């Protein structure tokens, strides 16, 4: 950390691979009566080209708001991105006009959501909802766009694509709708695919298929993936790097191997204990008592202190910084503040 020459050399090398760079992102919600929910509170991370980065953490830790901030789809009011920078291949997204941003959404960044049952417009056909994106970004004519849509549906595994294209969302199962969502998200070969718990609402048997499909698509199109999940089994299988989020902040960041084998943060350790029950919704961790503090009531000290088995006096006074004290492995915990850690 004290050798700036070496550091700048390594960042230069990385620059060419760098796809997305989020710095100091703060997304707050005004709750009224002067209360402010700091849903995302000073989050920084980056995603390289071709990389799959997993974002994990319990419900309410700020994962969805982080991803929606990247898309600039935060409902305003009450939400607002109050600070930070989000760069896609060097282009700052936060200063783009709304119109310029529509050229990024669905084109450079595609997104899949958790709720396949409600994520499609119920009154338009599947085809209509796919071609909409193609016509907007690739300036295709209707005819051509429908042909491309059929092709896309085949790629995501529909053998009867010509029929599906004229059907409505309610005629499809959850797994099929999520395939349609993937087809939509990938329709313009995005550089980044954001998937917010894409398999959580699906049958266990379908989950693996959807996940494999995403990985296939990524390889075929050379995209990067930001995968939000609370399923540590999935993380182990598909991620290159992992971000662990708690109380609106990143508490640990590491390559997937290190995260599993050299786990640092007590919270991550607790998360990993949930692996045997892969399909159980991670509403709260049974292995540690307590819950994520609500985003308008964060303590001044470490946000995990209340639930931490290693809690010290210092933890209740001062929130630790996110520090990289071994290569590529960052942690936000007072236990590791001396170089080398414990």
């Amino acid at each position, binding site marked *: 950390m004290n050798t700036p020459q070496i550091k700048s050399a390594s960042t230069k090398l990385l620059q060419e691979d760098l796809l997305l760079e989020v710095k100091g992102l703060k997304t707050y919600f005004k709750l009224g009566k002067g209360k402010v929910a700091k849903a995302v509170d000073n989050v920084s991370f980056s995603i390289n080209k071709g990389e799959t980065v997993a974002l994990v953490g319990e419900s309410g830790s700020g994962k969805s708001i982080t991803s929606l901030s990247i898309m600039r789809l935060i409902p305003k009011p009450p939400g607002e991105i109050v600070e930070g920078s989000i760069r896609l291949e060097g282009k700052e997204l936060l200063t783009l006009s709304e119109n310029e941003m*529509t050229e990024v959404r*669905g084109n450079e960044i595609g997104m899949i959501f958790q709720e396949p049952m409600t994520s499609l417009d119920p009154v338009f056909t599947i085809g209509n909802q796919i071609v909409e994106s193609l016509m907007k970004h690739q300036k295709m004519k209707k005819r051509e766009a429908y042909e491309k849509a059929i092709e896309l549906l085949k790629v995501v595994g529909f053998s009867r694509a010509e029929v599906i294209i004229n059907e409505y969302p*309610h005629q499809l199962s959850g797994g099929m709708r999520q395939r349609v969502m993937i087809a939509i998200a990938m329709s313009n070969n995005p550089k980044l695919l954001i998937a917010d718990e894409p398999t959580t609402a699906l049958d266990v048997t379908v989950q693996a298929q959807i996940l494999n499909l995403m990985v296939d698509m990524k390889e075929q199109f050379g995209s990067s993936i930001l995968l939000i999940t609370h399923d540590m089994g999935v993380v182990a299988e598909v991620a290159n790097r992992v971000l662990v989020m708690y109380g609106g902040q990143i508490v640990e960041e590491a390559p997937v191997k290190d995260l599993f084998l050299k786990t640092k943060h007590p919270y991550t350790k607790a998360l990993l204990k949930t692996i045997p029950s892969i399909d159980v919704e991670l509403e709260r961790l049974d292995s540690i008592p307590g819950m994520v503090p609500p985003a308008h009531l964060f303590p001044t000290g470490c946000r995990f202190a209340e639930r931490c088995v290693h809690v010290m006096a210092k933890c209740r006074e001062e929130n630790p910084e996110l520090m990289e004290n071994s290569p590529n492995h960052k942690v936000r915990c007072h236990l590791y503040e001396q170089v080398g850690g414990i």
Partner: protein
Amino acid sequence: MAYIIRRIILFVVTMVLVSLITFSVFQVMPGDPIRIMLGTEADETQVETLKKQLGLDQPLYVQYIDWVKGLVTGDLGESIRFSRPVTELLADRLPVTISLALITLLIVVIVAIPLGIFVAKRQNKLSDVVLSSATQLGMAIPSFWLGMLLILYLGMNFSFFTISGYVPWTQSVAGALGAILLPALTIAIPQIAVKFRYVRNAILEQLRLDYVRTIRSKGITEKFVMYKHVLRNSMIPILTIFGLITAEVVAGTIIVEQVFSLPGIGQLLITSISYRDFPLVQGIVMYITFIVVLINFLVDILYSVLDPRIRLN
């Protein structure tokens, strides 16, 4: 298809029930039309002859069946007061009431929907206060008074408006509009004041749903999000409201035709009730209920056009 067939069956059943109720109500209503026709001095044989002539000596179910046959074939008997076939009287008056109702509806639709969209897009405290006061005012103003205000301030000052009576469309389109516009506004203004909020709420409701976020995530511009997707989805709840509005507009014509001396069905209804002109009253009541039930039927059919979840289930 099964949905439409079910709706048609429901429509027919409702109409049969309505006819039964209308028919029975007039059996138990006080006031003997025969006595009114002949005067209190008439003797028994005269009464009997007239009863036979009108079929009133038959058992009730035979009278009912005859009456329904008449309804279907368009023969509703003869008005006691006007001594003319009821169908003829209705045919004279219907164009007036139907033009009034349709123009009112048109005004409500072209004002309430854009207004609802406009306020849904601009939510803030001030506009909320202004708009809820408008709603309160709209609900509180009696329609006869609003009608008189319109006559006073618009009707008296602009020669375009006819403030009393009716001009047929075939005679002069401008004349017909001049006669219909003020009464239509009288019914439309309170409707708009109350109903545009439903439109606003329906749109805000949609904007909260997940699919809107998906559309935005595709890079679709806000204009398309609103006018292609949200509006189309909101039309389903908005349609329900317009079913209600239509029924209220039809009811509204009865009072407003009095205020503006329009020779429509409403005026005819009031005259016929005061003369105990039962065949005429029955005919009018049947026609009004027929129109309301028909509108509900059409609304149901439109649902299936707008919502594939209904159409394809």
